[in-house]
């Protein structure tokens, strides 16, 4: 599963139960539309830290990095210790 697919699945499972993957566009504003509120953001950050080995202590958390699937993916690609976007996660081929 690719990095962006994994993030999408997490957001759907965690914040949008019942919403299909085809409904959630990559640039849908998750913050302004109240899908991820400030407490939800903490959960996302904790999950990203664990899943993508991002050293959150060293990374500046800026709200703009979490407005959409696109921006979260970009954030992960930039900061992930696991490296670039083509890396497979959970051992599965993308």
């Amino acid at each position, binding site marked *: 599963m690719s990095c962006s697919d994994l993030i999408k699945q997490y957001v759907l499972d965690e914040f949008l139960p019942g919403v299909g993957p085809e409904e959630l566009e990559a640039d849908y504003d998750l913050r302004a539309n109240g899908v991820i509120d400030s407490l939800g953001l*903490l959960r996302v950050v904790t999950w990203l830290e664990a899943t993508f080995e991002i050293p959150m202590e060293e990374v500046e958390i800026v709200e703009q990095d979490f407005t959409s699937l696109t921006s979260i993916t970009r954030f992960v690609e930039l900061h992930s210790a696991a490296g670039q976007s083509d890396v497979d996660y959970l051992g599965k081929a993308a």
Partner: protein
Amino acid sequence: MTGWRATVVAARPAGLETIVPYSRSLLGCLADFARNRPESTALVMGGDRVSYAELCAMTMSAYNGLTALQLPSDARVALHAAKTPRTVALIVACLLARRPFMLPSTELGATALEELLEKADCTDVLTAEPGAGVGGLRVHKIDTTAVPPDGDLAGLDGITGPDVSPDATSFIFTTSGSTGLPKVVPLSFQAVERFTEWAVTKFRLRPGTVVLNYAPFNFDLCLLDLRATFKAGGTTVLVESERATNGKHLAELIRTESVEVVQSVPMLYRLLADAHDGEPFETVTHVIVTGDKMPAKLLPELPRLFPNARFYNIYGATETNDSFIHEITGDLTAAGPLPIGRPLPGVDALVLDADGVVVDGPATGELLVSTPFQTAGYAVGGGADKFVERDNGRVYFRSGDLVDRDADGVFTLVGRNDSQVKVRGVRVNLEEIEQVLLGHERIAGAAVVALPDDVAGLVIHAVVRRDTTEPLGVLGLRQFCRERLARAALPTTIRVVDDPLPTTSTGKTDRKAVIRDLLNGS
């Protein structure tokens, strides 16, 4: 209701004199501190420290910018309440210029904001943030850097002049309504001066006292965090809105800035307790819990976090400001809800029974309060019946809160007489959200409920019945809500159903049944 009459614009409470001479007014104090202790810190945010001299220079700069706009003398403006020292300077400049200013929530949806600005007659919106994207017809960016900090502060002398009417409007706050539009709550200079005078004395604010500001600027809590602190010559530490839910950051901030006074909704204490590393916050002397019910589980954590502090539960509404205080002492693990205590000095509280009759002694009923700090009435929205004048000449605010008063005169909150709830300290009306959802052309029914949550206190869930067989996307509905509601009022989940919503025997939506269904996951 015998002995009562509704007033459209409530009078000032009778028998309350002008208690604050102008030489002690906030603005006079700021000017004094700028001259006598120019290097002392007024504001801290992020790595930035702003001295009293710098704050006054920023204020003069904003004042000049504001004057240059040449707005009609009685025109109200709206301020973009971004949480920065620049915005503080702009607020003080508006006070200096006697310009009534409204502070709408920065999280209000675009459609709702436009409507609010129109209803409140605020055609001009001011922002001190150079790069801010701000809604409104005419947006003016106000420069707060044009006057150097060592410049001429002579203009500040004008601020102790005699021409301010104590009843003139200073701050204008907004608070949630039940119709989809916030209520607009103007506060007079006098009301604010009286309140800050109380806060300075009660919490022993002095030159150099460090006060944490957790609430966003559109909350009346800032009158204590900032206005009272400046009056005393203290330092306000601003919590950046983006980092307000980061417990580790908050703990570090309290420690590095040696914060002494903390006022917040319970959520801050929850976040601090969760992030706690065992090292207590030794410098904190006063801890104020306000805006929401304190969870019983969280209460015993307070002395562990703040071993040197006194603890207070404060009750108030935007309309009246703080009205009750309860000092929390003794066994903090005791069962039962935390009392809101007794009325503040100068506050009168009444309990109305189910028949609308004022009752004495131990009683349960609706709380009515009259405070020296209250608004003279809504400028926009809200029924005039929320303010009632009694035979004693005092005007009381009908809080809608149900209270229990014991034989000792100690009050405890027991509920609401309407569908208003608190979400992280923000007043949210469930009916308002339902009305907004019902405004969607493909929704035939809507039920909005609040369910308990460990961290947030309450979270909002919506169930809507679609008036169509076509798919009705939750994401589109969210966007629809977001344009019309404040962010705190956006439901955490929206569920779309086809079956009619459960109703009571009188045909109203049965929220209890909806809650049962949600809890059972059916």
